[in-house]
């Protein structure tokens, strides 16, 4: 029972597992009846915080991958939290199933990460039966995640389910017709201008940061919509554009430009924070104004007492001289040694680790941040779980659906 007296009937609202008994009997029963009539829900999800909600994630055929990654991440978070998330894949499967990086089995690590704990069905949304099937599913769902431009957008927007739309650009920008790539979005939102050397080309942040930041945003929008529904309010339709999210994340560029008339930009070797080599890799030199005295004590070089370095303005003016003094301190030390010594003095230097090195990171091991699962086709997998512990509890992801299952369910 939700607040505000909204009744909750599990038979009506919960998608059940696609029963193994029904697999192999394709064409016999429409997808929607399989999905809605089987009531076998995994026990664990009963106690998860979003277990009472059903969410449809519509993956149309022709969508820029960067939008798909965002909608998939939002759906994954909801699914790991127990929501019944049904992913609708186009014939042939979600193209992300073929995107790098790949596992040794030939399956996509990207797909496996982004689709944990979901179920999936292949539906041809261009066909009449596919359209009808989607309509039925939406009629029973609480929310629908979809990407613009999707052929099903109109249907999604008028269904009982609250629409959570992922787009590339703000509506004011010919959003539906402008060609899109994730790199273009990072450029447009001003993030690339901030990274690299001033005299050289701008760089993107590694990974799929525009998509993932948008996916996190869409999850929060989804949670807000579900909270409104449960409180008996009309939930707002949510629209997330990658370009707006990147600008929002990069707000200091606009703030700085508005305050001083000049935009901040990539400073490279003129930056106060620089990356320096050490014995076994690199370390990011990071410190705040209050941490400068601690940094001075850590490096313990009398030249740092020079009045030129006493103020932040002075340090910025003599940044090359400052780093000439700092850099040799790192050369003969390991990243671990630097990290430990600096933390002991309250200085937040950042040893740079690769994803592979994080597998053995003591802090991550102590918190069981990396969850192990055995996937029926991909084998033993180790991946980050949701970055939150809830009364000490983590949310172990469950295996992503295989394409075979999704096709059989169709």
């Amino acid at each position: 029972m939700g607040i505000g007296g909204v009744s909750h009937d599990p038979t009506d609202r919960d998608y059940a597992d696609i029963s193994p008994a029904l697999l192999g009997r394709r064409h016999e029963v429409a997808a929607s009846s399989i999905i809605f009539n089987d009531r076998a829900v995994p026990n664990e999800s009963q106690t998860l915080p979003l277990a009472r909600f059903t969410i449809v994630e519509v993956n149309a055929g022709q969508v820029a991958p960067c939008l798909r990654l965002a909608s998939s991440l939002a759906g994954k978070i909801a699914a790991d939290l127990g929501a019944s998330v049904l992913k609708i894949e186009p014939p042939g499967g979600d193209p992300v199933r073929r995107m790098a990086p790949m596992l040794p089995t030939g399956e996509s690590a990207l797909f496996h990460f982004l689709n944990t704990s979901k179920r999936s069905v292949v539906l041809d949304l261009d066909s009449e039966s596919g359209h009808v099937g989607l309509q039925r599913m939406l009629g029973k769902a609480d929310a629908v995640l979809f990407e613009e431009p999707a052929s099903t957008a109109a249907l999604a927007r008028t269904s009982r389910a609250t629409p959570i739309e992922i787009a590339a650009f703000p509506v004011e920008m010919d959003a539906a017709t402008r060609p899109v790539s994730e790199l273009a979005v990072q450029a447009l939102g001003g993030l690339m201008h901030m990274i690299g050397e001033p005299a050289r080309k701008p760089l993107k942040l590694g990974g799929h940061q525009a998509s993932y930041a948008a996916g996190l945003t869409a999850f929060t929008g989804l949670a807000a919509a579900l909270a409104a529904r449960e409180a008996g309010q009309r939930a707002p339709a949510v629209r997330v554009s990658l370009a707006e999210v990147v600008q929002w994340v990069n707000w200091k560029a606009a703030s700085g430009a508005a305050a001083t008339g000049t935009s901040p930009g990539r400073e490279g070797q003129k930056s106060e924070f620089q990356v320096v080599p050490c014995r076994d890799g690199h370390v990011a030199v990071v410190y705040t104004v209050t941490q400068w005295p601690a940094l001075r004590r850590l490096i313990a070089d009398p030249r740092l007492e020079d009045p030129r370095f006493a103020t932040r303005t002075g340090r910025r003016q003599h940044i090359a001289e400052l780093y000439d003094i700092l850099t040799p301190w790192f050369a003969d030390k390991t990243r671990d040694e630097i990290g430990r010594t600096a933390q002991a003095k309250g200085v937040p230097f950042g040893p740079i680790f690769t994803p592979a090195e994080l597998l053995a990171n003591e802090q991550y091991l102590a918190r069981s941040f990396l969850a192990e699962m055995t996937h029926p086709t991909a084998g033993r997998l180790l991946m980050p779980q949701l970055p939150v512990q809830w009364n000490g509890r983590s949310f172990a992801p469950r295996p992503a659906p295989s394409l075979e299952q999704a096709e059989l369910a169709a």
Partner: protein
Amino acid sequence: MKGPLSGVRVLDFGLLTAGANTSAMLADLGADVIKIESGAYIDPFRVVGKMDDDDGWWNRSPPFRFTNRNKRGLALNLKDPEGQRVIRELAKHCDVVVENFRRGVLDRAGLGYAALEECNPRLVFAAISSQGDTGPERMNVSFGSTLDATSGIASITGYNGEEPRISGMDVNYPDQIVSLFATGIVITAVMEARRSGKGCFLDFSQREVASFTLGEEILAAAADPAYRLAPRDNGEAGVVQQDSYRCADGRWIAVTLDSADASLAAFCAARDRGAAVAALLARGIAAAPCNDGSDLLADGALAGATLVRDENGWLVKGLPYRLDGRGITIERAAPELGQHTDEVLRELLGYGDAELARLKDSGVTSTTPAIGEV
């Protein structure tokens, strides 16, 4: 405005971006956010964005204004037992606590989860920290780009074949994304508290949030010891040609091509930025200017809902999404230090003039910082 979180009250100890912005996002959804500072420890954003040395400088910082609009502000001394008592009283009237102090700080003030949960079992307590509340590195300090480094993001950012790069102090990327996730989890926990009558302790590690954005890289590396680090630079696996290119006016654009074209660099070099982007878009090619902050300010269509003005005309942070097609109206500008102390203590705790005067005279409440530089 009646938002999805109307009726929810947030006790906000959030500082800088990670904490304060999580509360700001809750405020934007209709929650009543009361921000707690102390004269002895003001939000460092009041100092980082210091514009002048004149009286009241602490109320004029742009980054503070950007992040704390739509909140009410109280100044109560967390180190004073009387200040601590008042905060415990306030916690009884709140649904959510957001804090991003170093671990242990609130516990030592008798304001940690155990103490506040005793006052109010329905409380959702969101603790946002560098490394999380457990583990050998729980007491580590970090500042934005520290976590670019330790999360793995820096290792796949940079020029091809050169050293790794961080997002830097004007982005501090890991600080920016945590609120996008934490807000949704807090809302989920509020729903649960409404149903069950019981709150919870939410332990967020900012470093884990940053590593979570590299989930597929960690998964691939775990599955295959021979997996090679994803290359740096502007390329992308499966994308034929993609980079930033310099235009005739010296400005840069980013372009993604479906089929390789060796003449693209020359094409861009022969045109000004705007003309190059327009020509590429007209051919159905994804292209965009590498905008700077001034470009973002100038392009209202692009800014979308992300920038708004408060009642004083100051530019502040808007929404990362649209709700029913709209952004937000700023209902109140970021609070001056201690601006709403008396108002909130009267409203929630029923304090009268004498009680408020006593708290002020004993230095528990204040409207001026006890420090000059942070």
